[in-house]
């Protein structure tokens, strides 16, 4: 091992790059010998190692002790739970905004779909020859295309509620069975699939006389 090491040389840059590994104890024997040989003859690198080693030891022993001695304020947990249960103002505001946007988007989609359908229906219904003169009395009696949109109210509620209920959370805290090997948490419940609340879009004819 030392024979092999003696045939190789290592400079300050290589040594510096391996100081952390040396402190972690993750160097193989050859590398360790090379580094130690270099350190024996290089004061600058030795000084650097001393500095890093002191900090490494200090942080390894002191940091966990000091950090573990910190106690959370008595009511922090309760406050967080309360906040999560009863809603935080900012969060509620965000939800209200999102709910309004979701509803507005749903309405816009429905209106657009209705208009598009109406346009297509009218284009197909009318002959290519333009009417020479308008005959309001006849038009008034002619059936006018309308669209009925049937909406499932439960699904609409589900869309509105979507942001207030975090998907994936079960009705209970996870049990031991919910943990995968290695301590990972299995997904408790798949995210609910939100279906379109529109059940049917149906063109119908209404007479204005009705």
């Amino acid at each position, binding site marked *: 091992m030392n024979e092999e090491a003696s045939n190789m040389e290592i400079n300050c840059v290589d040594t510096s790059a391996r100081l952390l590994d040396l402190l972690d104890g993750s160097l193989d024997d050859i590398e360790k010998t090379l580094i130690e040989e270099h350190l024996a003859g290089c004061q600058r690198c030795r000084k650097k190692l001393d500095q890093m080693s002191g*900090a490494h030891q200090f942080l390894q022993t002191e940091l966990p002790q000091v950090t573990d001695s910190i106690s959370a304020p008595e009511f922090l947990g309760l406050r967080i739970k309360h906040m999560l249960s009863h809603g935080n103002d900012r969060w509620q505001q965000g939800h209200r905004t999102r709910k309004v946007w979701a509803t507005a988007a749903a309405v816009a989609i429905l209106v657009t779909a209705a208009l598009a359908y109406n346009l297509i229906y009218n284009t197909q219904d009318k002959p290519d020859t333009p009417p020479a003169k308008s005959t309001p009395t006849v038009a008034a009696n002619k059936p006018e295309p309308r669209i009925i949109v049937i909406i499932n109210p439960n699904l609409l509620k589900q869309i509105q509620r979507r942001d207030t209920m975090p998907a994936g959370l079960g009705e209970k805290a996870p049990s031991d069975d919910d943990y995968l090997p290695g301590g990972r948490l299995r997904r408790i419940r798949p995210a609910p699939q939100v279906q379109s609340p529109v059940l049917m879009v149906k063109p119908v004819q209404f007479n204005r006389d009705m």
Partner: protein
Amino acid sequence: MEAKTSPGSDFEWIVDAYHEKIYRAACMLLMNRHEAEDLTQDVFLAVMKSYSRFRGDSSLYTWLYKIMLNLFRKRRSKRKLLQWSFNQGDDRQDFDVLFIDEGDSPETAVEKAERAHRIADVLRGLSPKHREVVMLRFYEEKSYREIADVVGCSEGTIKSRLHHALKQAGGRLQDLKPSRNREQGG
């Protein structure tokens, strides 16, 4: 049986299990207990909002820690934490209060305070990025690969950051050494 009226009630076990750990880590990253309280609350609020996105690829605590780091960075960029934490003298006292326990004897209290002072001095001398890595390595005892996953960069970058952090911390520690040690050394 009490009906579940709000989603928050399902999170109680998560809050109970992790709020203390998250708070401690937040304290050491922010070096300010009030900011740490806010950050801890924000973490659980974010968890509640994005729980459906938790795929179980990592442990729940690792996921919480990632969220905390993201919020910490946002907070840092918003408020320019570096200047703020270095320049505010009151923060130091505010941070020291964390380590005072009413049951401690005066000697223990002094000893604790000295230890906390040294750690706080060393951590304050580090940039937030270096502080993140130091906390994950020496407090959370994560491997380089795990740290890289949590921080979101390569293992090489993590090692480089830790190298620089240790160099800086070592220099700071030498400055903090009592004068008698310097005399012995000289």
